């Protein structure tokens, strides 16, 4: 071709490229302050009160949201069935930390590293920390099994398959009291497995349902661990592979990234967090019943990730806290009387579905990149840039 074609200049974006908005020192300081606040603030609240309860739940949800963030945020695999991992983690706790398997050990029960009163009760009673490991193992395997059918599917189909699995597991949970397996039922359906052993840590007073602060600190410890794992993974070979996978699967494979292995690792790792949090919640809420495991929960966690910012670790933390506050505190407690105050005849909890749905719609239309966008993501969702078309093709002369 004879004519000289001038090279098109990509307009530079406004955001300082590659860096976050804050200088590094400020980010560090903010992180430390946030962690310190998380540790200190609960000391000022009543250990048995409603607020403390919400702190505990929020922390548990943060762990879940961080798990889903790995699957959806990092690897870009749209998982609409995350509740399945909550369920599996919770049932692990239910199996190994309660009197559900009443016939175990010939009626005397099996006890591993537990103290009174659990050590005297029938059923299987295993130390909480070991149960956490079991939950991680179970959910990791489950995550990979669920991910397996989705490997060759496109985005929205992955959503449907994971949704289907979430529903199947939910149904098994509900109907599990009809299924008999090795001399016990599979689940206790809607009645639930209850009571569930309380967390039992060496050297610490027994956990009770009246003093919630110790529960919070255990949950917070889980949060710190999970955050650590997330940050380490994000800036590693695997994290980069996940993001490449999300951006452009074909190019990623052509660059030597094994797609199957990388996707399964995303599912497995993300699921594991859900499992741990599930085990924790089973113990905290003292029950494992099928009503906890519905599709709306999957959407709840997904909304946290989206609200916070897909792929953005801190964003997801904030998103989880905000949504947990709205769902468990603002709607049922704080704003509950709002409708009747203005003369309407219902209470706000009846609207929680609708409010939630509304939030999702508004978020996607107004700020799809989330509250704290993954530093890179802001470019992609806002500026109409596709992953393998759009900008690049537009530049072809």
């Amino acid at each position, binding site marked *: 071709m004879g004519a000289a074609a001038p090279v098109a200049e990509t307009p530079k974006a406004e955001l300082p490229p590659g860096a976050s908005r804050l200088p590094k020192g400020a980010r560090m300081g903010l992180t430390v302050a946030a962690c310190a606040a998380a540790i200190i603030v609960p000391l000022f609240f009543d250990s048995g009160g409603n607020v403390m309860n919400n702190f505990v739940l929020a922390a548990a949800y943060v762990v879940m949201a961080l798990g889903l963030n790995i699957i959806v945020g990092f690897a870009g695999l749209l998982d609409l069935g995350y509740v399945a991992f909550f369920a599996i983690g919770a049932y692990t706790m239910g199996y190994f930390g309660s009197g559900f398997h009443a016939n175990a050990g010939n009626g005397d029960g099996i006890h591993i590293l537990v103290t009174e009163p659990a050590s005297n009760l029938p059923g299987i009673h295993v130390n909480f920390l070991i149960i956490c490991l079991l939950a991680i193992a179970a959910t990791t395997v489950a995550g990979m099994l669920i991910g397996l059918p989705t490997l*060759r599917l496109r985005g*929205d189909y992955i959503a*449907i398959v994971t949704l*289907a699995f979430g529903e199947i597991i939910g149904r098994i949970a509900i109907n599990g009291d009809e299924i008999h397996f090795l001399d016990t039922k599979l689940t206790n359906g809607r009645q639930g497995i209850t009571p569930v052993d309380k967390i039992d840590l060496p050297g610490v007073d027994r956990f009770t349902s009246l003093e919630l602060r110790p529960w919070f600190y255990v949950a917070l410890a889980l949060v710190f661990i999970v955050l650590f794992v997330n940050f380490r993974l994000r800036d590693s070979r695997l994290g980069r592979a996940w993001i490449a996978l999300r951006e452009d699967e074909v190019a990623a494979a052509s660059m030597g990234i094994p797609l199957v292995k990388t996707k399964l690792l995303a599912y497995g790792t993300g699921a594991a967090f859900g499992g741990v949090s599930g085990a924790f919640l089973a113990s905290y809420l003292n029950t494992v019943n099928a009503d906890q495991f519905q599709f709306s929960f999957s959407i709840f966690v997904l909304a946290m990730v989206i609200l916070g910012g897909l792929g953005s670790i801190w964003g997801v933390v904030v998103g989880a806290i905000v949504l947990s506050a709205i769902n468990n505190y603002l709607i049922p407690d704080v704003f509950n009387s709002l409708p009747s105050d203005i003369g309407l005849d219902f209470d706000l909890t*009846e609207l929680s579905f*609708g409010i939630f*749905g509304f*939030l*999702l719609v508004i978020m996607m239309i107004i700020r799809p990149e989330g509250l704290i966008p993954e530093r890179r993501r802001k470019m*992609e969702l806002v500026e109409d840039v596709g992953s393998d078309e759009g900008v690049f093709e537009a530049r072809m002369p």
Partner: protein
Amino acid sequence: MTAASLPATQPSAIRAVRAFLSRYGLIIALVALPAYYAVSDLVEDGNLTRIGDNLVDGLSNGSIWALVAIGYTLVYGIIELINFAHGEVFMIGSFVSAGLFGTLGLTAATGTGGLILGLLVTMVVAMIACGTLNVLMEKVAYRPLRSAPKLAPLITAVGFSFILQNVGLLWRGGSPQSIDDLINSQHEVFSIFGVSITNGDLLAVLVTFPLVLLMTQFIAHSRLGKAMRATAQEPDAARLMGINVDTTISLTFLLGGMLAGAGGLIYALFQTTIWYFQGFTAGLIAFTAAVMGGIGNIRGAVLGGLIIGFIQQISDNRIGTEWTPAIVFAYLVLIMVFRPSGLLGEETREAG
């Protein structure tokens, strides 16, 4: 983004098995369930009446799913979006119908002439209401996000699904509501080989069949229908040919919504119960039907709907209604694994 096709080097034996499974696996899985029960009927009862009943009931239910499935398949075919809120549109159709029964004063005692007139009016209103609702959702939620990554409109769809569920919840409360059995749906009209055909069965087929026929004729022959097909295949080329893509897409949503509304009416008459949550399960079942038939393919949606209806009926009748969703979803997973293109879709090819 095209799906990555990654051919793995496998020994030809494994590849042959996979090819066989992908071709016939789905069909085998579909036939297995009814075949098993048919045989067990022959053994226990000495005849096929029970499975025949299942079939008839299944086809009637299935025609409702077919109507809803067409809506999914039309929308997916034209903008590659799973309209998550479509099940709720169906639910609103049932609710609007039930509401109109009251307004029009239709009861089980209403005479046939008045009933037919009343039902026709209800159908028209329900179809218009649902069609409009669907179009509104498209304008408000999906159109602004057309250029966003696929996650965004999917999430808004879920959001709308929740909003509509809440509407249903506030409208008629949290528990299933029974409504008058206007058409005496269980009344047997005649029977074939001992299998009874009821009012409800006839209604389902008599309403669905013409609607589907109308729809396919419209899409095949009318100008707007051609515009729809063109836009579905090549939106940019369609635009260049002077087709108003936005209007065409809205039209697609309108048609899909209208069919869902009709389905909602039939459901209300047939099941005589409505529930704010019915859309969620119905949506997933109808979507399974659409995918089973081959997404984007209307005949496929109808076929899928009927098949799923049959399977659902077998499950309800033999295994237990509480297990049916799990079984239907298990079939959905099987379809996705072995034959994502569905029964009437093209054989899955590699990217390109």
